[in-house]
C-alpha cells in the first residue's frame, strides 16, 4: 500500500523531486508573504489616513478578497493576469505577446490573498499603540519618518508577531492551491508522481507529512521570535 521504495533519492524514486518541490513551496510562501506584507502596509496606510476614497478602496479590496474562495482568486489571476499585463503594456506601446511565468503568477496570487489577512493583523496592532506615544514623539521634534521607524514599527512588530505567525501558516497552506496553475510544488509533485506510479496514497501521504513538517517547524521559529521580541514584556 505505502511504497517506501518509491521515495528514495535518485532515478529510482521521487525523493529528490520532492525535495525540490518542498523548496519551491517554501520559496513561493516566503516571496508571497513578503509581497503580502508590503501590500498589507499600503492597505493599512490607506485605511488609517483620513481619506474617504483610499479607505473605501482598501475596504473594498479586503472585503471582496476575503469573501471569495482562494481558488477563485488564483484562477482569476492565472487566467486573467496575462491579459491585464498585456493591456498595460499596450498603453506603453509594447504589442508583443507577454507571458508571465508560473512562479510570478503564483507569488502575486497568494500575496493578494495573504495581504488581506496581514492587513487586519497589522491594523489591529497599530491601533494598539497608545496615541500619547506618537504625540510624545512629535513633541520631541521627531519627523514622520523617524516616528514610523523608531516608535511605531518596533511596537507593531511585537504586537503583530503572533498574528503574522498565523497568517504565515495560512499562506503556507494556501500555496497548495497553486498546483492548479502547473507550478511544481509539493501538491503538484505528488499528483505527477502518483499518476506515473499509480499509487496516489503513497505520494499524498508524503505531501501531507511534508506540509506538517513545514508548518510545525515554522511554528517553532515564530515562537522563538515572539520570545525574542517581547523581552522585558513577559507577564
Amino acid at each position, binding site marked *: 500500500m505505502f511504497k517506501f521504495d518509491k521515495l528514495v533519492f535518485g532515478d529510482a524514486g521521487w525523493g529528490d523531486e520532492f525535495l525540490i518541490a518542498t523548496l519551491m513551496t517554501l520559496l513561493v510562501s516566503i516571496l508571497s508573504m513578503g509581497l503580502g506584507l508590503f501590500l498589507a502596509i499600503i492597505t493599512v496606510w490607506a485605511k488609517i489616513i483620513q481619506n474617504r476614497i483610499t479607505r473605501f478602496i482598501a475596504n473594498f479590496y479586503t472585503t471582496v478578497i476575503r*469573501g471569495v474562495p482562494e*481558488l477563485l482568486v488564483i484562477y482569476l489571476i492565472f487566467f486573467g493576469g496575462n491579459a491585464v499585463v498585456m493591456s498595460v503594456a499596450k498603453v506603453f506601446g509594447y504589442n508583443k505577446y507577454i507571458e508571465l511565468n508560473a512562479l510570478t503568477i503564483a507569488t502575486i496570487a497568494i500575496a493578494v490573498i495573504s495581504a488581506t489577512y496581514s492587513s487586519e493583523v497589522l491594523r489591529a496592532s497599530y491601533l494598539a499603540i497608545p496615541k500619547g506615544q506618537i504625540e510624545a514623539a512629535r513633541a520631541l521634534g521627531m519627523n514622520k519618518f523617524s516616528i514610523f521607524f523608531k516608535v511605531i514599527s518596533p511596537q507593531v512588530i511585537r504586537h503583530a508577531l503572533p498574528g503574522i505567525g498565523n497568517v504565515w501558516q495560512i499562506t503556507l497552506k494556501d500555496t497548495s*492551491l497553486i498546483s*492548479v496553475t502547473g507550478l511544481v510544488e509539493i*501538491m503538484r509533485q*505528488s499528483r505527477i508522481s*502518483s499518476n506515473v506510479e499509480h499509487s496516489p496514497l503513497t505520494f499524498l501521504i508524503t*505531501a501531507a507529512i511534508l506540509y506538517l513538517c513545514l*508548518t510545525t517547524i515554522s511554528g517553532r521559529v515564530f515562537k522563538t521570535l515572539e520570545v525574542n521580541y517581547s523581552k522585558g514584556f513577559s507577564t
Partner: protein
Amino acid sequence: MIEFLNSIQNSLIYKNFFLVLSGLDNTILLLLISLPLGFVLALLFALGRVSKITLFSRTIASYIFVIRGTPLLVQIYLIYFGLGSVKFIRESFLWYALKEPFWCGVIALTINTVAYGAEIFRGGIQSIEKSQVESGLSLGFGKFLLLRKIILPIAIRKVLPSYGNELILMVKATSLVSLTTYMEMTGIARKIMAKTFAPVEAFIAAGILYLFLNFLMVQFVKYLEWKYNPHLRLNN
C-alpha cells in the same frame, strides 16, 4: 432603454451568472450536510479534548494537530484519490460513499471543520469561570445537566464570533471540492472559462455569488450573537 437591457442580457457576465447560479444548490448541499455534522462532532471532540482521560485528549490533540497542519486540498485528494486506490476499501461498503465526489467532499470538509471547530470550542470551554461550574454543582446539578445548562451554552455563545469565521472559511472551502470533478459553482465557472476563454466574466459571476453567500452567513452569525447574548444588548 430596451436596447440597453438587451445588451445587458447578451453580455457574458449576465449569461454566466445564471449558469453559475445553477451550481449554487450543489455548493449549499455540501454545506448543509458538513456544517451541522461538523458542529456536533466539534463539540464532542472539544469535550474529549478537555476530558481528564489522557487517551482521549491525546488522540484528539494529535488529530487536530495533523488536520490543522496540512492543507485542505491534501485532505480532499487523500480521500478522493488516495482511499480509492486501496483495494480493500474499494471492496468494502465504504466504496458506495467514496466513489462519489460529493460524499468525498462532505467527508473531507467535515473532517477539516471538526478539527478547527473543536479547537475553537475548547477555548470557549476552558474560558468558563470556575465559580459558574461550582454554583451549578452547589445546586445539585449532575454532570450531564451541568454540561447542558451551564458549560455548553456559555462556551458556545462566547466563541460565536470565531466560529462564525470558521463557517465563512468553510463556505470558501467548498470551492476546493470542484477539483474532484464535483460541479459546484467554481467547477462550473472553470468549465465556462474553458469554453469561452473569458476568465474575468466567468469568475466574477462566481465571485459575486460567493460574496452573497458569505454575506448571508455573516448576517446569520450576527443574528445568533444577538439572540444568545441578551445580556450584551444595549436596550432590552
